[in-house]
């Protein structure tokens, strides 16, 4: 496809020149070791280029339309009114917000104040400049820019983001809410490259909420990378909510590294975006660790939402549980690709995966590809995938009690989604989602 190649070259050229601009603006921080990583990443991106639908991992998601736009690196310091942010906060958690504008930590807009001097929540760029030990140890160690083009792109343009370090034996008394907003000012579409690194120490606990919003309707690209490290016995709930405008593009890679006895649970909610791709990679690298991955998406119009998850059981005696659900309307498209790898040493693994999708129209399309790759024999693994409609028996039962067909369907759809929301531990988020999605079903 020659058209494809031109676009690819154009975009790679754009990346190189944008990187040059970025480098020129770095001043002193270009001497920091992390800049070497950026350079390696930009070179790697030039090698990898944009993925095409001929790549197995991108078979159903064509990113081409995104790059037909003229892009510009997002303005690093746009002016955003404080009250504009309020709408994105959760009732009861508005003072727990870290706000990132175009990927950049905003001290003015953030409301979270941490009393504990050992807990660190703040600007990633500051942490890099400080030479923070945890940053040196972990940043860019898990998100693989050698094979993932969009991770390379993010890494090349990582200027700032969020750094969270919770030392050992601390149970955070409240959730941390990272609120990402993109503000496009020029005609050119903005690319924001937010980066998050969270390191959670031994036996510590935290709930992290990442929400993504658009201030004004624009065809921007959010290309986010999040790395989460769980040390021994750590417990993390990571809620990611993508609520951007229907013309936004969103590509996100979350990479999670778990030590023994740690427990990670992820809830991934997608309601916005024109083309959305989430990669969630979890490595279970210590025994008796467990992971719970939940996801829900609801698409309308011509949205495309693609969730790729990869659970790597590298050691024995771990457990993973996964449930993804989607409801597709109009001519939207959904993709679920869930891979579970059980390595040769990972005996006594329990891995369960399920995906369920509802198609509401004949123009909606669902592609599901659940995969198991098993190299150990003493394991219990299963996956299930269903695509279809609401349970007919349940529909009949509701109708036989006098509930009209439309209403019965709306109740069942809501129940279908609630199944995921109920698993969210942060009540403020759960309540907000329940009402948000309820509106969706009654429109």
């Amino acid at each position, binding site marked *: 496809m020659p058209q494809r190649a031109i676009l690819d070259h154009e975009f790679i050229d754009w990346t190189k020149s944008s990187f040059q601009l970025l480098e020129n603006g770095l001043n002193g921080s270009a001497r920091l070791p992390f800049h070497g990583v950026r350079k390696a990443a930009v070179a790697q991106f030039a090698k990898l280029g944009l993925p095409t639908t001929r790549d197995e991992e991108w078979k159903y998601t064509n990113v081409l339309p995104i790059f037909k736009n003229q892009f510009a690196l997002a303005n690093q310091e746009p002016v955003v009114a404080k009250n504009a942010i309020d709408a994105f906060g959760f009732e009861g958690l508005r003072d727990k917000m870290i706000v990132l504008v175009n990927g950049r930590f905003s001290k003015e807009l953030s409301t979270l104040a941490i009393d504990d001097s050992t807990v660190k929540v703040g600007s990633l760029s500051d942490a890099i400049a400080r030479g923070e030990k945890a940053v040196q140890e972990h940043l860019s160690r898990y998100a693989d820019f050698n094979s993932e083009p969009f991770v390379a792109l993010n890494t090349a343009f990582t200027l700032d983001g969020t750094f969270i370090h919770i030392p050992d034996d601390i149970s955070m008394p409240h959730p941390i809410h990272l609120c990402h907003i993109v503000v496009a000012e020029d005609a050119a579409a903005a690319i924001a490259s937010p980066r998050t690194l969270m390191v959670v120490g031994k036996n510590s606990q935290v709930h992290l909420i990442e929400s993504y919003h658009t201030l004004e309707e624009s065809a921007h690209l959010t290309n986010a990378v999040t790395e989460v490290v769980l040390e021994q016995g750590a417990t993390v709930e990571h809620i990611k909510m993508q609520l951007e405008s229907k013309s936004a593009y969103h590509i996100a890679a979350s990479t999670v590294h778990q030590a023994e006895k740690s427990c990670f649970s992820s809830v991934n909610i997608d309601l916005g975006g024109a083309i959305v791709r989430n990669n969630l990679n979890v490595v279970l690298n210590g025994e008796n660790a467990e992971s719970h991955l939940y996801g829900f998406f609801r698409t309308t119009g011509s949205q495309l939402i693609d969730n790729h998850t990869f659970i790597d059981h590298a050691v024995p005696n771990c457990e993973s549980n996964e449930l993804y659900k989607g409801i597709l309307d109009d001519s939207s498209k959904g993709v679920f690709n869930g891979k579970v790898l059980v390595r040769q040493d990972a005996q006594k693994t329990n891995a369960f995966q399920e995906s369920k999708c509802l198609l509401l129209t*004949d123009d909606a399309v669902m592609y599901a590809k659940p995969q198991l790759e*098993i190299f150990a024999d003493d*394991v219990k693994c299963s996956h299930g995938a269903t695509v*279809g409609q609401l349970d007919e028996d349940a529909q009949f039962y509701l109708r036989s009690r006098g509930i009209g067909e439309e209403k019965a369907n709306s109740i069942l759809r809501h129940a279908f989604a609630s199944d995921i929301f109920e698993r969210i531990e942060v009540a403020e988020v759960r309540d907000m989602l329940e009402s948000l999605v309820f509106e969706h079903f009654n429109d």
Partner: protein
Amino acid sequence: MSDAAMKELPKSDYDDKFGSQEQQETIERITKSEYKWGWTTDIEMETAPKGLNEEIIHFISQKKNEPAFMLEWRLKAFRHWQKMEEPRWPNVQYNNIDYQNAYYYAAPKKQKQLKSLDEVDPKLRETFDKLGISITEQKRLTGVAVDAVMDSVSVATTFKAELAKHGIIFCSFSEAVQNHPELVKKYIGSVVPYTDNFYAALNSAVFSDGSFCYIPKGVRCPMELSTYFRINAANTGQFERTLIVAEEGAYVSYLEGCTAPMRDENQLHAAVVEIVAHKGAEVKYSTVQNWYPGDAEGKGGIYNFVTKRGICLDDNAKISWTQVETGSAVTWKYPSVILKGDNTVGEFYSVALTNNFQQADTGTKMIHLGKNTRSTIISKGISAGKSQNSYRGLVRVGKNAENARNFSQCDSLLIGDRCGAHTFPYLEVHNKSAKIEHEATTSKVGEDQIFYCNQRGISTEDAIGIIVNGYCKEVFKELPMEFAVEAQKLLAISLEGSVG
């Protein structure tokens, strides 16, 4: 497991991994079993020169006295093949195949035209007798008509006259080209076009024989039809082609079996099977694939790259694939059904067993196009030794396929911890009324199950045989009785010595 392989593990490790002494011995015994069909027949052969070019294709076509349309089709396929790349997406690894270093035509030399089956070269007859496939009708398998194919050439077809009474045509592909060119011309490549994939293109260019079967309207074939494939010659690729056409309301059950000698070099088998089922027709196609799998070190064995596809052309047609795959070094095979007519049914039942260094990437494609189409996929993968076993399947529901139903169950059983089981199902749904369900599980032969059997006086090896056969029962019950018994035995033999 071979002695050499066992040496790789320090004794203590070995104990840990494989448990009790008795289980160890069983594992050893099972992995050491010999391939029992590995002998060769010494018979005078006629071969084309090594290599592949247009001249060879002219040679093959000429040898077979083919009409012009066949030669043209072959040449088109060959030219297309030259532009294609060998697929690398399957989850298998093998050395590059040198397509120029193989013979593309090998046939047992014929003395004269045969007047009856009794005139078949005694050596050939012996060969098939030894394989348990008698081509003299007196000693026939009860109620099974056989087309015996050795090194790409049909040797004999039994019961032709009996079948002809019903208007059924069952003969070698070469004979069909001579006697029924209009049927061949109409249907060849209609389900698997030569452009379909690399191996299908190669087969289309060089196929030398195979079986042809035509069931006329309303006829229920009175006996099982069967093709037995045997590779004998060295350095020869086997490229046979099977075409089955079932007219409106017809029914046929078709069986296929295969073996090959033990040779150190890998041999390529790239076959194509096409099935056309017209309105209300039903075709059942069963395969017991037992090509030479290579030795315990992974040396030799057949590369089995096969394209099998059926089309339910019209309403209420049904195509059912059942396969028991125990042989071949590398298998790449996805018997598929295109459900074009309304109310059509596609089925795929598969047992794929890999041991030692075998690799299998097999599964099916169910393409739902018509309304109220149904498909069922039951796949049982068993991996032992150091083998890799993959299920790869596609269920696609087209935009106009109202009320499509699919149920897939893909289970994997691992025996030992040096093998791998992989599941790659693809679900593509374009219609909201579809109901698609896929389930997959991975498990092992439970120690408690073995113990339970032991306690009732059953040896560990037999217990594993019983348990594995039980695991495959859903598939075996789809096979014709005699084949089911054969398949069970084959499974036990292939498993001999592989347990953890």
